[in-house]
């Protein structure tokens, strides 16, 4: 057997997590950060290796033959960018949360935090890499456990309740998905050759009539709860509010991506016909998410909740791009998944620094921060504008592609979605105005006594650099994503609508 590149990649953070748990209280975070950086370097190495030599790193091993499941990993374009996003965000979170757990505010020790973050990384990487429905499901599901302890262990006063809400929504979605997994197994077995490999499933004719539709709905509900889409979103603001900023960045940056990722891998990849059948309803749900998230963000008093609601709005754009099913919009949606993690991750971390200094996440408790902490204000502005897709940042590229691609098939939907972009500008700029501008309020002067330290800056700089570089030069990422969206277009056997000019020929 060849050297298992991808298994090692997925398990590396897990092994480091065990090492962290075994090391001393102070040494733990150092071990963890080194391990996270090693994962970053190793992942970069694999990507370079694959690109330079053109070898396949796919792995496959029989695992549960009774239901046709095999332990199959592979790295396609979408998986590659998701892996890159994950390995970049995790070290940033660890650096930003360097001091978490040392003030005695947490329920567990600091090294536990680091170990749990690494567990989240390991399980998410495995689900991004897996090409087997059951293996994907398993890792999709177990990411909940470390995240549950991350939310419940550190953060606000009502975190226990928020963590339970997170877990119950997650497990409920997971079990609904289990129904889909069982059904897919049965349908695949009925074709005579049971397999849960995504590529094999794509070629099988899975049942007719209502059965595959019901299974598709089960999958979609599970992913919509994860991603989260209105009305399945109600757990996210609570979980984000009570979580640490780093934990929230991980949650919306990586874990929630599993939802949109699953929509592409499973809904489009395995049930393309049913996806097209459900598209009208899903697009309307996506529009509702875009506006609901934006309006709730405008109305939020709490910064952590505000950013959570902006994410719900962004997930609406992604879902719209996915189900509009044009190669442009799909490429845009996949790229959006990466950019959202970079921009919103950076925003959560910077806002987290301010919240830590001020001791409150209430928007009204700030004011005039730009005068006392100009760097913090600057980073907030850059990350905030990136998250609302200012040209020159990479989210602009993806949002443009998603909307433009949707326009070619559903001009009305795309037209309405554009209005959501305006709302986005409102929530970010108004937040910036209330936090940063104006006279320095007494509370700000009392609490925010220092600007960002070098550690805090270095946590955010890689993320900002990434979305700026990709904003001006998105080609490397789009070049990876393009073939993936082509593949899913072919699986669904749809072609892009040809642009027509009225009256022309």
């Amino acid at each position, binding site marked *: 057997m060849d050297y298992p590149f991808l298994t090692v990649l997925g398990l590396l953070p897990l092994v480091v997590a065990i090492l962290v748990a075994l090391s001393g209280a102070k040494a733990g975070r150092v071990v963890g950060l080194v391990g996270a950086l090693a994962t970053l370097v190793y992942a970069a190495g694999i990507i370079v290796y694959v690109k330079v030599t053109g070898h396949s790193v796919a792995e496959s091993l029989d695992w549960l033959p009774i239901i046709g499941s095999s332990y199959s990993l592979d790295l396609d374009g979408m998986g590659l960018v998701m892996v890159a996003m994950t390995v970049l965000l995790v070290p940033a979170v660890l650096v930003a949360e360097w001091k978490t757990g040392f003030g005695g505010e947490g329920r567990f020790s600091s090294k536990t935090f680091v170990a749990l973050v690494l567990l989240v990384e390991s399980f998410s990487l495995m689900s991004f890499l897996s090409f087997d429905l059951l293996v994907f*499901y398993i*890792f999709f599901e177990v990411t909940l456990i470390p995240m549950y302890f991350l939310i419940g262990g550190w953060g606000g006063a009502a975190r*226990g309740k928020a963590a339970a809400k997170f877990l119950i929504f997650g497990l409920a979605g997971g*079990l609904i998905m289990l129904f889909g997994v069982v059904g897919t197994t049965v349908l695949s077995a009925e074709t005579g050759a049971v397999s849960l490999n995504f590529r094999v499933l794509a070629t099988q004719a899975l049942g007719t009539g209502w059965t595959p539709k019901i299974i598709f709905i089960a999958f979609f509900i599970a992913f919509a709860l994860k991603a989260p889409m209105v009305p399945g979103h109600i757990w996210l603001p609570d979980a984000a509010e009570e979580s640490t900023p780093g934990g929230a960045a991980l949650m919306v940056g990586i874990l929630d991506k599993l939802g949109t990722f699953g929509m592409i891998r499973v809904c489009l990849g395995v049930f393309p016909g049913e996806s097209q059948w459900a598209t009208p309803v899903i697009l309307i749900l996506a529009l509702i998410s875009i506006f609901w998230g934006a309006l709730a963000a405008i109305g939020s008093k709490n910064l952590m909740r505000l950013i959570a609601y902006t994410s719900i709005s962004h997930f609406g754009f992604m879902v719209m791009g996915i189900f509009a099913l044009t190669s442009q919009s799909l490429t845009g949606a996949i790229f959006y998944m990466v950019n959202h993690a970079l921009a919103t991750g950076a925003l959560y971390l910077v806002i987290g620094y301010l919240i830590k200094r001020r001791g409150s996440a209430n928007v009204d408790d700030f004011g005039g921060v730009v005068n006392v902490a100009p760097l913090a204000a600057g980073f907030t502005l850059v990350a905030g504008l990136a998250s609302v897709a200012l040209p020159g940042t990479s989210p602009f590229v993806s949002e443009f592609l998603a909307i433009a691609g949707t326009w070619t098939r559903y001009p009305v939907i795309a037209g309405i979605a554009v209005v959501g972009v305006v709302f986005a500008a409102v929530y970010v700029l108004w937040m910036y105005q209330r936090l940063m501008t104006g006279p320095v309020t007494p509370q700000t002067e009392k609490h925010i006594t220092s600007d960002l330290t070098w550690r805090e800056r270095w946590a955010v700089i890689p993320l900002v650099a990434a979305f700026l570089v990709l904003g001006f030069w998105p080609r490397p990422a789009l070049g990876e994503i393009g073939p993936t969206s082509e593949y899913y277009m072919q699986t669904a056997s749809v072609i892009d609508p040809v642009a027509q000019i009225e009256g022309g020929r």
Partner: protein
Amino acid sequence: MDFTVPSLNYLGLLPILIVLGTACLGILAEAFLPRKARFATQVGLAVLGLGAALGFIVARWGEAGRGLLDPYAGSVVTGTVMVDGPTQVFWLVIFGFGLLAVVGFAERRVHAGATSFTPSAAAIPGSQAETAAATAGLAHSEVFPLALFSMSGMALMVSANDLLVAFVGLEILSLPLYVLSGLARHRRLASQEAALKYFLLGAAASAIFLFGAALLFGYAGSFSYETIAHTATAHTGSDALLLAGLGLTGVGLLFKIGAVPFHSWMPDVYQGAPTPVTAFMSVCTKVAAVGGLLRLFYVAFGGLRWTWQPVLAGVAILTIIVGAVIAINQADVKRVLAYSSIAHAGFVLVPLVGALAVQSGLAAGEAGSVASIMFYLIAYGFATIGCFTVIGLVRSQGREATNLTAWAGVGRRSPLLGFVMVVFLLSLAGIPLTAGFVGKLAAFVAAWRGGYWWLVFVAIVGSVIAVFIYIRVIAAMFFAKPAGETTADIAQPGVATWIVLAVCFVGTIGLGVAPGPVLDALQAASSFLIPAGS
């Protein structure tokens, strides 16, 4: 009337005979050995006896290349006892988990040198005689032979191919349990009440089973499963007798499984009985009853599948929902697990209703109902024995603290045992990478392929509800703030108990990560043998 001398295949019966013989030896030891030597002798005998029986089954398993284990296997005792694949698996499971439970019986370190059984069952609770017995360090070492007797009854029941033998097995397994449930060291009145309740309801259930057996005898003219099956296919008797017999025997076994609406004894008995006995009952009794039910319904009533499937589907739904919903509101950990155990009885019934590939084979490498039920029970057994073992260790002021409020923060104070407990609870909840998940998956696939997709849907809804149960316990262990002086701690157990926990932990994770070989072995051993020439 002529009488044929039954031909006994002693070699086939050997595992049961070993356990039964060890139990008898234990009784003799109790009578003749000096008090000081008894406890160690009994523990040694029980472990040796079960070990020998297990070793014998495993050794024969190695010879399974020659078809279904001929010449040991097949019809022993003139067709009334069958030693086939399922029997072997169920024996292995019963004796294996029985061994783990018996080790728990012997745990003395956490109780300051005493077992969790009362020093003198005959003394009135709270009386001077009781105190005197405790001070004298008396102990009921006959709990070990009692457990062995119970296990031999279970083993007989899963291999019974005849209603009368099944009834004898049912009684042998039940009677020692009634006694064992009444022997708790602390809260003795509750324990005695539990024993009485269990006895009265259990006796009623046995009577119902016997009544059903009598009706079936009237229908088919025989207690033998094949004769009943043949008569049912040939339609030569009165359908009323057949259906009444089917219902009544079914009720008798469903009672032992703890299916709703025959579950009402479980919470009280599980709570009142000594914790190691609860562990033993919740796993071994359930396995034995499911084994008996499987053979009865698939062999004797296999042809009537379309009659009993809808009814059992209803029972399964009720059991899952009632068990899961009521468990959410329980304040006592043992009661929580009792209701969870009820819910799991419902989950076991789901693939049973599906009846996938019961008679015919499947394509190579697929699992039918019987194999998935066996796997589910094994997964459930590891997690449940593990949970009850940890429960026995959570103590405050010298006795077990089973109230959830007292559990606040125990996981943080003992991270290792807390972590192990979390793994067991997650397995019960069916979270991936644990055995419980694979069990649920195999069970649901079998049921769906058997045509019961809506039952799978309801079962999954039930699983969602059941998740609450386990999250509540985990949240109490790790996130709840200790309230006042009622906090408990996890005591450090002896080596033997650590071994039990390690076995359960490795089993839970191992079967979750690499279930393939075990599932294959179970599928290979999942067809019921029907004696030729009947």
